[in-house]
């Protein structure tokens, strides 16, 4: 039975025409106005800071200090003053920081994605059964070592050697006694949950560790630290990818005589290219933006761009907004470009699978 509405008014009332869509695939006129309106509003909210940043970099000091001017060529004449200053005068510092950022980000990403993918692949294919007791023993050895080094100032190399020795000696015996094992799921959870650790907790001992081997303010220190911080993400995303690749391929390759490593490199990785690309981009961007670790682990030579920019917040003259704008733009352009490439992967739902799992 057709409902009352239709029988009552064969023509749609004005209210209905505004608030109800004509067909199932369209929006009602009033709805369309609201939807487009809100979306454009947010688009302005997103783009305006970037626009302001851009035009500020082309302003003269006088333009900035006198009060806000909005439109180039109409309110003010754009000039390359700030750009010239940066590229001609402050060149060295900026260039050094930029190159440090590039080197550290690229190498850290390479390291992180490599060992993360290998671990993810292993967890997706191999059954691990670490004994719970062995792990407890290991943690106890670590604690003992930390206490011994901290409390009684024993040389860390010595205590490390002793702790490892103790562990290896006892591990077999303990393992034979207590049989309870953990599985792949637990290892995966352990790796991914490292992300919950606030870096500030780990960074002080890391600082002290690098200081004692005189590796502070070097590239290698930051590369190692950045890799570990982003490892959980790589393992999480790549694991989801590898799990969807059927094991038939591995088995067939191994029957053909390939080693596990060859299988991994020549067969599995090419299939996981989209996920690998997305993950690499993501980690690259995170490493580029890293601030806290660089703050602790670098002083002058190995400073990255975020530190350089943060350090410009000095002086009694207040911030020189025009040159600040230039440095910021130079810092964020690579990431914006990387983000534009990354978003295509995300919209293909590549990373959604991981989140759903």
């Amino acid at each position, binding site marked *: *039975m*057709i409902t*009352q*509405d*239709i*029988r009552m008014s064969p023509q749609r009332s004005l209210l209905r025409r505004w608030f109800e*869509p*004509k067909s*199932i695939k369209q929006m009602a006129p009033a709805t369309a106005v609201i939807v487009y309106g809100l979306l454009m509003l947010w688009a302005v909210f997103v783009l305006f800071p970037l626009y302001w940043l851009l035009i500020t970099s082309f302003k003269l000091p006088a333009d900035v200090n006198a009060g806000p001017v909005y439109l180039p060529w109409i309110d003010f004449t754009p000039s390359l003053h700030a750009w010239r200053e940066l590229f001609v005068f402050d060149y060295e510092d900026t260039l050094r920081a930029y190159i440090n950022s590039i080197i550290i980000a690229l190498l850290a990403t390479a390291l992180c994605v490599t060992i993360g993918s290998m671990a993810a692949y292993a967890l997706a294919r191999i059954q691990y059964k670490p004994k719970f007791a062995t792990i407890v023993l290991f943690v106890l050895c670590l604690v003992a070592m930390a206490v011994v080094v901290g409390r009684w100032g024993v040389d860390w190399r010595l205590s490390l050697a002793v702790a490892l020795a103790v562990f290896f000696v006892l591990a077999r015996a303990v393992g034979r006694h207590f049989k309870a094992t953990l599985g792949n799921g637990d290892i995966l959870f352990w790796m991914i949950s490292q992300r919950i650790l606030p870096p500030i907790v780990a960074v002080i001992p890391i600082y002290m560790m690098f200081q004692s081997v005189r590796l502070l303010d070097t590239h290698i220190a930051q590369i190692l630290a950045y890799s570990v911080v982003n490892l959980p993400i790589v393992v999480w995303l790549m694991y989801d990818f590898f799990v969807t690749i059927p094991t038939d391929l591995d088995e067939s390759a191994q029957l053909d005589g390939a080693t596990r490593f060859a299988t991994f490199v020549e067969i599995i990785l090419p299939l996981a290219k989209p996920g690998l690309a997305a993950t690499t981009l993501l980690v690259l961007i995170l490493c580029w933006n890293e601030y806290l670790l660089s703050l602790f682990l670098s002083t002058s030579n190995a400073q990255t761009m975020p530190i350089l920019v943060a350090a410009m917040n000095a002086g009694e003259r207040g911030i020189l907004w025009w040159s600040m704008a230039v440095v910021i733009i130079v810092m964020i352009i690579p990431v914006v470009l990387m983000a534009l490439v990354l978003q295509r992967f995300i919209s293909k739902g590549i990373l959604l699978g991981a989140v759903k799992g």
Partner: protein
Amino acid sequence: MNVEARGIDTGHRAQRLSLRSLNKSFGVVHVVKDLSIDVAPGEFLVLLGPSGCGKTTGLRIIAGLETADSGQVVLGDNDVTNILPKYRDVAMVFQSYALYPHKTAAENIDFPLKVRGVSKQERELAVRDAAAQVHMEDLLDRYPRQLSGGQRQRVALARAIVRRPSVFLMDEPLSNLDAKLRGFMRAELKRMQHQLGVTTVYVTHDQVEAMTLAHRVAIMDRGVLQQIGPPREVYDRPANLFVAGFMGSPPMNFLRGRIEDNRFESHGVSLPVAADKGTMAKDVVMGFRAEDANIVKPGAGLFDATVYAAEPTGDVTLVTLAVGEESLSIKMPRDYDIDFDKAVAVHFPLDRGFLFDAHSGVRLAARLVSVS
């Protein structure tokens, strides 16, 4: 609360459904071409055709999930062409069943009533009633993932029934079931539709389903309606080559040839033809069904052939014959046996032979006549 005022009918008056010159294109592809069908109240109409023929699009236009580029959809006395699906009083069973995974079977069936604001009491009654009609009373508390394919399909059916709509729409509801279950559900569906008496439009590519379920079959190919009529008529008097070849298992046998001087000529075949109004020479296709034909001694039939293979299937024996470059299928009784490459002849009653124009596919008025 008065149930009737909510648009729920306790008994139901079947409605007529009319499609008038519907056209729909997706981009450059003209998917539905000038479709016009009148479905009588309470009729079970099957839209039959191969994939891509526009039958599902036609169904979705009736539901309101697609909007036709031109044409009208009239339900009862109301033109519903530009009305949203929820006002059209149609219920649809999707091919994938479209059950809501986070709701129990009962909640799924309950949903159409719930969104219309029917009171809880009445809803419970209606749900139990609908569930009883599909024999699902004791599975109401399960979630879709805990149900088998056939059970899920029945929940989808119950959800369609519960509203007592004017029209049922079904999009290949049996295609995801295994063969045995499909046969069982076919009988269930037929009986249910008969009991409820609701006008039903059913889309399928399976001509057996069409034959068994339909009051009338509407065959479509590439967006165009080829023929519409009771199953018997569509089977015994196909309007064109496509319909003739689509219906029947095994498909109708075809021999390509020409009509010249009132004779049908093909490789090794020459049969007299009665053609009215002085037919000119033209290319034709002759067709006859496997079950209408018989294998006889060479010379004793309409034309000769050689045995290509014989396949006993249990209830019949399918014999494939070679005539020139064409192959024909003949259904013979279950005990029939014959050697490879044996020379034989084919005989069938002349009124069971059809002649089709080879280019347009239309069935010709010309027919085969007896030799003498």
